[in-house]
């Protein structure tokens, strides 16, 4: 490319060079300007148009999808008009740039703003130093939330992964594997809020008194067995475990599906070799299968840990964080939207972020190692 340009420009002399490049410069300006006008007009049309809804929808789709493509095309074209050395340097930014910009605007900037807010008072008018953090790390409510999150993290994760692994292994040796797996996986399709509603029916407690009939499934079972009905969600600290059961119900399917596919990837000859080497089925499982799927297990575990750290919906729907079931994310919600204390809420958010980061780094590093494997 470079040589042809030089050959073309040299014979015409300095004036020719100027006109040729001036022309290129003008075109390079003209095209982006036209593009901008087209997009702007599209925006104006979408904002002000009284056209039938269907037309607006179609234009919106065209404007949205086409606009993105057009922006990429035009900016790539503009960069290609520059000298090749410049093109090489700038071209990556044309494609990565928008992504980075969006990430910065929607992620980095809010995170930074939250950090600033966390050092300010409840209505963000004055700096209060570390007060919010002192609250977040010492307040009784917060400590309870930390404890509960720890419970979620330990029990929720280990039960989800453990059960997922167990079911994956057992289903793998069963004739009706796909049926079992489908049943276990199904709750995954339910949102946390939906699951909360379902489980609320299971844990319902009507109280004692004449003419009162228990409609909760769990209480029905307990009564049928001759026991006494219990207000399941009001007995700390056990109510935390009743809530954790819901997450296990939802997440076991996820763990199972991923682990199951990893188990299927273990070469049969490896297990046969272990058997011939003298391993029982259980020894072969722990010495060959588990190490072989170690990467997958870690990925699944860290993913569910992150899930349980930022858990919110189940607690919000089931107990609202009352009766000793509060968690960090719920306290954040209460501080921000119920008590209107932006400073404290931000401090809690930052702490949650810091708690998640190491897990995420470990997760990512594990992912990279697996690719190298």
């Amino acid at each position, binding site marked *: 490319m470079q040589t042809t340009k030089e050959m073309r420009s040299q014979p015409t002399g300095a004036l020719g060079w100027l006109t040729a490049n001036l022309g290129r410069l003008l075109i390079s300006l003209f095209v982006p300007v036209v593009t901008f006008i087209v997009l702007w007009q599209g925006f104006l049309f979408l904002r002000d148009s009284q056209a039938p809804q269907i037309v607006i929808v179609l234009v919106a789709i065209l404007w949205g999808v086409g606009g993105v493509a057009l922006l990429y095309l035009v900016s790539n074209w503009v960069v290609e008009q520059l000298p090749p050395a410049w093109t090489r340097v700038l071209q990556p930014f044309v494609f990565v740039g928008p992504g980075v910009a969006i990430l910065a605007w929607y992620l980095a900037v809010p995170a930074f703003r939250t950090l600033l807010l966390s050092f300010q008072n409840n209505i963000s008018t004055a700096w209060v130093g570390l007060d919010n953090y002192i609250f977040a790390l010492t307040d009784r409510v917060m400590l309870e939330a930390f404890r509960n999150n720890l419970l979620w993290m330990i029990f929720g994760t280990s039960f989800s992964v453990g059960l997922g692994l167990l079911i994956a292994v057992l289903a793998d040796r069963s004739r009706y594997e796909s049926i079992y797996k489908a049943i276990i996986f199904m709750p995954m399709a339910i949102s946390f809020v939906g699951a909360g509603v379902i489980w609320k029916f299971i844990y319902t407690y009507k109280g004692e008194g004449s003419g009162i009939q228990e409609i909760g499934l769990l209480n029905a079972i307990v009564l049928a067995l001759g026991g006494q009905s219990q207000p399941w969600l009001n007995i700390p600290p056990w109510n935390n475990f009743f809530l954790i059961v819901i997450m296990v119900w939802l997440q076991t399917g996820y763990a199972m599906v991923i682990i199951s596919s990893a188990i299927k990837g273990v070469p049969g000859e*490896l297990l046969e070799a272990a058997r*011939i080497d003298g*391993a029982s089925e259980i020894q072969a499982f722990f010495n060959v299968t588990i190490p072989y799927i170690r990467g997958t297990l870690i990925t699944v575990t860290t993913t569910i840990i992150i899930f349980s750290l930022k858990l919110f919906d189940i607690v919000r729907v089931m107990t609202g964080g009352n009766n000793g079931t509060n968690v960090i994310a719920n306290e954040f919600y209460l501080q921000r939207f119920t008590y209107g204390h932006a400073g404290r809420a931000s401090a809690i958010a930052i702490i949650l972020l810091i708690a998640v980061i190491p897990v995420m780094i470990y997760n990512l590093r594990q992912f990279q190692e697996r690719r190298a*494997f």
Partner: protein
Amino acid sequence: MASVTFDHVYKRFGDVIAVNDLNIQIADKEFLVLVGPSGCGKTTALRCLAGLEDISEGRILIGDQVVNDVAPKDRDIAMVFQSYALYPHMSVFDNMAFGLRLRKTPRDEIKRRVEKAAQILGIEHLLDRKPRQLSGGQRQRVAVGRAIVREPKVFLFDEPLSNLDAKLRVETRANISKLHQQLQTTFIYVTHDQVEAMTMATRIAVINKGILQQIDTPQTLYDRPDNLFVAGFIGSPAMNFFSATLRKDDGKLYVDGGSFSVLIPENRTSVYMPYAGKQVIFGVRPEDIHNPEFAPPGIVAQPVNSKVDVTELMGNEIFVYLKTGDHSFVARVDPRSRYRINDEVQMVFNMDNMHIFDKETELAIR
């Protein structure tokens, strides 16, 4: 160290019979090679012996013990897999020590045995590596090492050389033979490559379609194949077969192939006399067809006129593809021969080493 016996062993997968009435007695310290084309059931037979497959019928014995219901881990066998099946997360040392650790062997005993095996195989410098850091040949040796540290009664090899390049294969072949000498244990080796079988085995079992065709020493198998399949399978290039008739003329017996007619040596005439006038399959190995100029002295030579189709120079010999009438055949001739395509030539057959098979039963007539 133990003998192995297959006693009327059947293995069925649904309607498919993978192993059909297999009877083999393998003596202690023997090196038996199971050979046959892909899918003939040889690997299945080996897996049955290892306990990785249940047999449908019959008995398998290791030593004097029937092992039909014995789990693989209790059969005291070691196996080298085609894919080597090294544990990817373990170092070479741990791979080799795994079986010993499961048997609760003392630590220093494990170390001693692994180091000894590594020394025999020349892999001492690799003990700390992971399998993925090894070349194909090194992995193969680790797989063998994992088998020998256990000092089992029987070694099983399932096509252990098929993933190696040609040069390494020849080298490893010799090493495995040497290993057998050193260890003085029963080796059972599965391969589809008749060269491996010929070079390593004390006895070869040829299997086709799940049925044992013949079991004997390599030389006997080569010189006196029992049937058409064994004759065609052992030897490279394969034995030439001609459809022919046995013709009796003046008290002498000829093999009449239409375009050629060769005299059967007198000392063997009586064997074939009952077949006079019948259709047979006449077999001659390529090395028993000579250029008359270089034919070794003292053979019972019979001339056959033919036409050169293709020649392949191998350096130390020439493969000549010839035609006579409708018959095509290959000769392995002296490298000093000068043949050009479409030359009309006369070849001589060494009738001492000919084979004749019944056309119906495909069995050798002797």
